[in-house]
């Protein structure tokens, strides 16, 4: 990673990166009514705040189909938790299944979309989000690998670069992979990118950002998405 990362260092200037809620809202815009969506822990969970007015069904891998928002203190139901073990509500029409049935739904391609965070995404759709090291400390994997290969499509939402300014969009992942050729779209604080047959295709950019500036933050070759 060190060889390619050099190209991506240097602070972004002269534009306004999207905030996390803006990233989540931008992603939510692309979810049509009726999809069944699994949101990973962290930034992905914010997406559920931005689909108001459309019926989107949120699945949680611990067996909830039709998850609502976080519980308010006055509506506490401790027997309902999401995959992040936060107390959540059910929406009208929700149902509950056991873990094997829940992952049968996931692995069997019945989830229209899974949204996950990531450490790295490669231009062929490989991605890494479960551990930064196999030797240092104890990794945990949860359901990420199952979701990544099982959902009909996988979108990643993450900052465009790491906290120390290294590129997270790469030619090849350096970290232990979560799944191969799984990611079809990436939403960052700088851009929206499709993973096309020839690599990353820029669909959208934060206001004021140039392709050149975006390329400088990215360790894989970018091209503009052809108009549909």
């Amino acid at each position, binding site marked *: 990673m060190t060889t390619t990362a050099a190209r991506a260092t240097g602070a972004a200037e002269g534009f306004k990166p999207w905030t996390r809620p803006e990233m989540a809202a931008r992603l939510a815009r692309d979810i049509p009514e009726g999809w069944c969506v699994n949101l990973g822990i962290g930034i992905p969970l914010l997406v559920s705040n931005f689909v108001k007015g459309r019926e989107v069904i949120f699945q949680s891998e611990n067996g909830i189909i039709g998850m609502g928002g976080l519980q308010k203190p006055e509506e506490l139901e401790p*027997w309902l938790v999401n995959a992040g073990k936060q107390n959540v509500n059910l929406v009208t029409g929700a149902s509950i299944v056991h873990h094997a049935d829940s992952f049968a739904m996931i692995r069997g391609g019945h989830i229209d979309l899974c949204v996950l965070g990531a450490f790295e995404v490669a231009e062929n759709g490989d991605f890494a989000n479960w551990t930064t090291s196999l030797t240092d400390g104890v990794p945990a994997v949860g359901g990420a690998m199952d979701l990544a290969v099982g959902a009909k499509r996988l979108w990643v939402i993450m900052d465009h670069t790491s906290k120390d300014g290294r590129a997270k969009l790469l030619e090849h992942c350096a970290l232990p992979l979560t799944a191969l050729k799984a990611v079809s779209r990436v939403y960052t604080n700088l851009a929206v990118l499709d993973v096309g047959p020839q690599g990353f295709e820029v669909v959208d950019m934060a206001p004021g950002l140039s392709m050149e500036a975006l390329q400088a933050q990215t360790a894989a070759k970018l091209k503009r998405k052809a108009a549909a």
Partner: protein
Amino acid sequence: MIDKRVKSIAEAMQGIKDGSTVLFGGFGAVGHPSHLIDGLIEQGAKDLTLVGNNAGSGRVEPLVRLLATGRVRKIICSFPRSSGSVVFDEMHKAGKLELELVPQGTLAERIRAAGAGIPAFYTPTAYGTALGEGKESREINGRMYLLEYAIRGDVALVEAWQADRWGNLTFKLSGRNFNPIMATAAELTIVQAQHIVELGEIGPEATHTPGVYVNRVVHVPYGDPAPALVATA
């Protein structure tokens, strides 16, 4: 008369042998049979292999105290590490606790397979990753899959909402999670139930786990799991 109810946790835990593989339900605290885990500490079996989703948090909960006894040789789970998994981290780092890390869906399916008499199956999950290394792989209709084997338990520890004397069970909301599949996959399935109900009260279409899968039921009306408004893992 079939009556799987036993009077105490100690009675429920009788006969668990050293070297047993023990499956346990729960997703975090919800649906986790913590009183039976406590009973397992009391019972004293050692050289155990535990199979469940998590490895416990903090230092007080029964699962963590069981690990701390040193009587667990190995844990098979998907999410051992959380912000509070200090005991697991320490013991694993010190080489005192073996870990088999399994993707959550593969874990669930391997347990379901054991209960269903399926010794092995193919899954796309983890192919090409570090967790697939050393596993047999195979191309089927142009896609690559890993061969995964059933995980069978000697004992399953389950938390249910309702139970009757046949061992028919219901689970409350997301307390269901791993409990129904754990119940199917062990020689000896032990249930702690919040409510003991009359036979017939659950109803044929409301039963989540038929009593056929259950060996012993003990009444543990402990109430609600701790609320967890803040994400832990």
